């Protein structure tokens, strides 16, 4: 096997597992709240340290040969089919591992403050560690099957954490919705893997690790299934998996609902790390997409459409977390646009910067919610820049980063994506992306204005969050500021060592900055002007709402996509299941066939029983007639 044997990798995933077990089993009884929180955070910190150590070892290798592997044991082996429990560190997974463990650590620390006093404190940290464990398995997996373990594992963690406050049936339902929607995607992922494995086996390739798959990608390109090119089909099916996990159209509906979980969870799982797994997976499997450019077109168009749709929906939301959730969906769309345009490194770059500023924004939102004792409605906030100064400054950093204002992180990555899309020749997609970038700047500015400007409109007393929450946010803010510059200088060449350096055209930069500026200005004009007017009761979206009431209702209700799914898919399916049980199962199979047979024999018995008159002589006559027949038959044998 190629690559260097590197036993350190397993130590990257083990501390969170240990943290999960310790906090989960012992937490409530033996650990204080502080100890539990520190234990959970330390476990992730340990992973981060190991990730750094591994990275330094990786960097010591020559650029073309940067691959470290750690095979723990043969996991599944049946017939010729073998899957190892093996980990892999290459530039891509190193970046991901660092982002995951780093951001996770910060959010763990933040959570100590945020979850203070919650009944399920230890459970929370054990779940969080559980998530980090599976996320690292996903990232470090050396084969798609093990990756799938992490893939579903993080889904489970997400399910558990969304439904963390399970006593609220709506939150529990949101968890279930997330899990099931993800399952639909996962089925696509599995189908893609099945086809991939079948193609490889047909070509005599039985190992499923990424290096082997990559080396044999032409097998998929040369095969076809049901008349369709296999590589294309695999690409699309895997992308279906990605749409589930990374909340792309049409499976994005679970992510906004997932905001039912604690806000740090939204930051960690539903913004920074888990939801980006789809992008990571596509980047990881990019060798397949190279063999099937048509699949990339699907990715590009879907990403673009999702980015635009989600940005539009975000414009009209009232719930601070919903705005950020749709923003995440939209930004994930950007990442898929990058992958779809063939620039997976740009996608991963945006993934990284997005992890910083979106985590920051979510944590800031969490800080606001925490400070307002649970209020999430933007219309009941306002003026918080006075009450929560630190949070305001941090949010503003995130705002600029997300809007794409140079030189903050978001500008670099988003600009790169738009440029790549443009150079790939997809003009319409580029235009839509540009529009979406403007919308992005608009809705995030709107959020900032509504929450922090003007005067406070709520009733609860607003208070600033403790340092254990603000310090991690500060670190994330710093990363949001410098992440873009550092990434452009260092991350891209690290990810794609052989690639030529980027040539940025000044025109492109100007256009994209102009779009961001337009969005911000529009937000201040539309939302901010109302503030100046002082119509506190007649609040800002009214201006848009008053201009296009129908359109506003449509957007505010998220284009009724949930309702459409409910009416067209879920309800009919549930009713069909019910019908299946009531009619074919109970009535036809059990009623008519099984018990019907029993009834048939019962009535047959009754009918024949009527012949039993009780008259013994009648029986005797019948008996003798039978005897005669028998004799006749025997004699007929002799004489005929």
């Amino acid at each position: 096997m190629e690559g260097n044997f590197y036993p350190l990798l397993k130590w990257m995933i083990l501390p969170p597992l240990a943290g999960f077990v310790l906090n989960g089993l012992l937490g409530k009884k033996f650990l204080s709240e502080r100890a539990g929180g520190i234990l959970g955070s330390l476990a992730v910190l340990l992973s981060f340290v190991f990730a750094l150590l591994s990275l330094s070892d990786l960097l010591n290798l020559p650029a073309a040969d940067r691959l470290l592997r750690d095979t723990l044991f043969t996991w599944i082996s049946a017939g010729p089919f073998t899957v190892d429990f093996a980990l892999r560190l290459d530039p891509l997974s190193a970046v991901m591992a660092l982002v995951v463990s780093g951001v996770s650590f910060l959010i763990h620390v933040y959570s100590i403050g945020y979850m203070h006093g919650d009944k399920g404190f230890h459970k929370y940290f054990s779940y969080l560690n559980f998530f980090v464990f599976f996320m690292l398995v996903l990232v470090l997996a050396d084969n798609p099957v093990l990756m799938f373990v992490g893939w579903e594992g993080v889904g489970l963690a997400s399910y558990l954490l969304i439904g963390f406050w399970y006593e609220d049936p709506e939150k529990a339902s949101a968890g279930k919705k997330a899990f099931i929607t993800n399952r639909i995607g996962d089925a696509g992922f599995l189908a893609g893997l099945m086809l991939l494995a079948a193609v490889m086996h047909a070509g005599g390739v039985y190992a499923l690790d990424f290096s082997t798959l990559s080396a044999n990608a032409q097998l998929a390109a040369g095969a076809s299934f049901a008349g369709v090119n296999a590589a294309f089909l695999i690409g699309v099916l895997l992308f279906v998996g990605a749409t589930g996990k990374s909340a792309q159209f049409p499976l994005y509906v679970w992510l906004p609902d997932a905001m039912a979980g604690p806000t740090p969870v939204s930051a960690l799982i539903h913004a920074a790390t888990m939801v980006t797994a789809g992008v990571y997976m596509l980047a990881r499997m990019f060798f397949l997409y190279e063999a099937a450019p048509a699949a990339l077109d699907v990715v590009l168009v879907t990403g673009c459409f999702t980015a635009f749709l989600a940005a539009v929906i975000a414009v009209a939301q009232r719930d601070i977390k919903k705005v950020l959730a749709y923003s995440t969906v939209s930004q994930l769309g950007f990442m898929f646009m990058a992958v779809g345009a063939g620039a997976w490194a740009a996608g991963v770059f945006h993934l990284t910067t997005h992890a910083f500023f979106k985590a920051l924004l979510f944590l800031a939102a969490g800080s606001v919610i925490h400070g307002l004792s649970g209020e999430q409605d933007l219309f009941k906030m306002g003026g918080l820049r006075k009450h929560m100064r630190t949070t305001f400054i941090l949010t503003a950093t995130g705002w600029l980063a997300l809007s794409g204002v140079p030189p903050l992180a978001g500008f670099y990555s988003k600009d790169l994506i738009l440029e790549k899309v443009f150079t790939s020749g997809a003009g319409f997609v580029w235009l839509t992306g540009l529009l979406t970038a403007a919308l992005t700047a608009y809705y995030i500015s709107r959020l900032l204005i509504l929450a922090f400007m003007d005067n406070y409109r709520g009733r609860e007393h607003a208070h600033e969050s403790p340092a254990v929450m603000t310090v991690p946010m500060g670190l994330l803010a710093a990363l949001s500021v410098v992440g873009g510059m550092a990434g452009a200088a260092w991350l891209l060449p690290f990810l794609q060592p052989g690639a030529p350096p980027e040539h940025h055209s000044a025109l492109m930069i100007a256009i994209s900055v102009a779009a961001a500026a337009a969005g911000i200005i529009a937000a201040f004009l539309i939302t901010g002007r109302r503030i100046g007017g002082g119509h506190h009761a007649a609040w800002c979206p009214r201006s848009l709402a008053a201009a296009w009431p129908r359109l506003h209702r449509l957007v505010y209700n998220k284009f009724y996509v949930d309702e459409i799914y409910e009416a067209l898919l879920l309800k009919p399916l549930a009713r069909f299941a019910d019908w299946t049980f009531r009619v074919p199962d109970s009535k036809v199979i059990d009623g008519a066939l099984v018990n019907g047979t029993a009834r048939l024999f019962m009535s047959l018995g009754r009918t024949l029983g009527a012949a039993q008159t009780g008259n013994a002589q009648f029986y005797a006559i019948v008996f003798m007639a039978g005897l005669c027949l028998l004799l006749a038959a025997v004699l007929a044998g002799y004489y005929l």
Partner: protein
Amino acid sequence: MMIGPDLLNLAIYLPLAAGVLIALLPRAKEHLSGPLALTSSLLAFIPALALYTGFDPALPGMQFAQDLPWLSALGARYTIGLDGISMLMFILTAFLAPIAVLSSFTAVKEHRRFYYASLLALQTGMLGVFAALDLLLFYVFWEAMLIPMYFIIGIWGGRRRIYASVKFFIYTMAGSLLMLAAILWLYFDHQSRTGVYTFALTAYNNSAAGGTGMLLFLAFALAFAVKVPLWPFHTWLPDAHVEAPTAGSIILAGVLLKMGVYGFIRIAVPFFPEAAMTAGWPIAALGAFGVIYGSLTAWAQDDIKKLVAYSSVAHLGIVMVGVLVLEPAAVSGAVLQMVNHGLSTGALFLCVGMLYERRHTRLMADYGGIAKIMPAFAAVFMIVTLSSIGLPGLNGFIGEFLILFGAFKVWPCLALVSLGGVILSAVYMLGMYQKVFFGPVSNTANKELPDLKVREWLCVLPLLALIVWIGVYPNFFLRRIDTAVNDYIRLAGGPRPVFSLAKGEK
């Protein structure tokens, strides 16, 4: 004692002997029957474990084999032995039996001596089925097992126990009679060809082809399909499960259903490879259809036990696809999935039984918010639920994954249909979990439920340990069945041709 046939016989007959002993206990000592039964089933597990550790995965054919004259006039011999597949089923049975016994300590209060005697006799019957290598011996064990099960459902069952037990009995009996007819046909046919009367399993491999082979195969297949249960022969299962006491459900789901699949592997397919090759697809298609059908019907249930029962139809459906596809990975997966289903569904029934003992209802609507009241139980139930859903890292995934990947290479359509079950299983299982465990505690009767007790932990923990173990390190089990799976595929005339992936005309 050497690890050999003596140990095998010990493992098989020890429970029966203990059962007779328990049945003969004086009435005053009735309270001893439970502990005695537990001890004896645990004692029987020791030789089974020894056999498992002493099993050499590399050797082909049967191990610990014994061949003694039995009914010489008929040519029937007492032939027993284990290969990798039956070894796994054997240890599963020996493993589940003590749990079933332990789970009934508080649940069964009447006729305890007879109850435990039945349970132990059932254990002997089940172990015998997996060890028997003589058709007549197999048939005797197969039928003998029905009787204690019939009693367990019919005497200690729920409200409609008589209906359920009679349905169970007649349904399986009808299938068995067809099998008996087929066995006799084979027996006399063999005699007329060779002049030897024999019931040895090995004598009948590839024994009939053409139309006769197909008819005989269908006779065997029907008998086994009822047991599996394959759609549409499944309706006895929900009734039997719902009415059976917890231990009965555990055994029923854990072991009895596996016998149908085992029958296909050991008898129906190797005896008539040609027919199995032809009829394999339709039967597997029934299985794949059953995956969707069982999931949908499970979704429609209000009763937890019934839901789990219908989920068994789905799980066994996918196992049938794996068994008949004759692809090494898929068959291995199917065999492992049989164990997985035994563990996870057994554990589910165990958990439902625990709930039932506390609240005496199985309707989901009567629960809600249980996670708050019984957090440990909720965690256990969650793990078991996830195992049933097939979450990676737990046992269910390994089996389903291998079956799907193996089957896809031969029958992509069936594999894709079965994949639908992956989605649906999450829908109905998590829906059930949510209704029972999440939400507010609306029913005041639920407020004071105690969490798991020591005895219940003892029941659940071994199952959980295996669920995780198989999920994380399945190779420990897969390694031991590899040879047997290859033997099976060879006898079945497989592997089947893989579908063409050649580049299309486009």
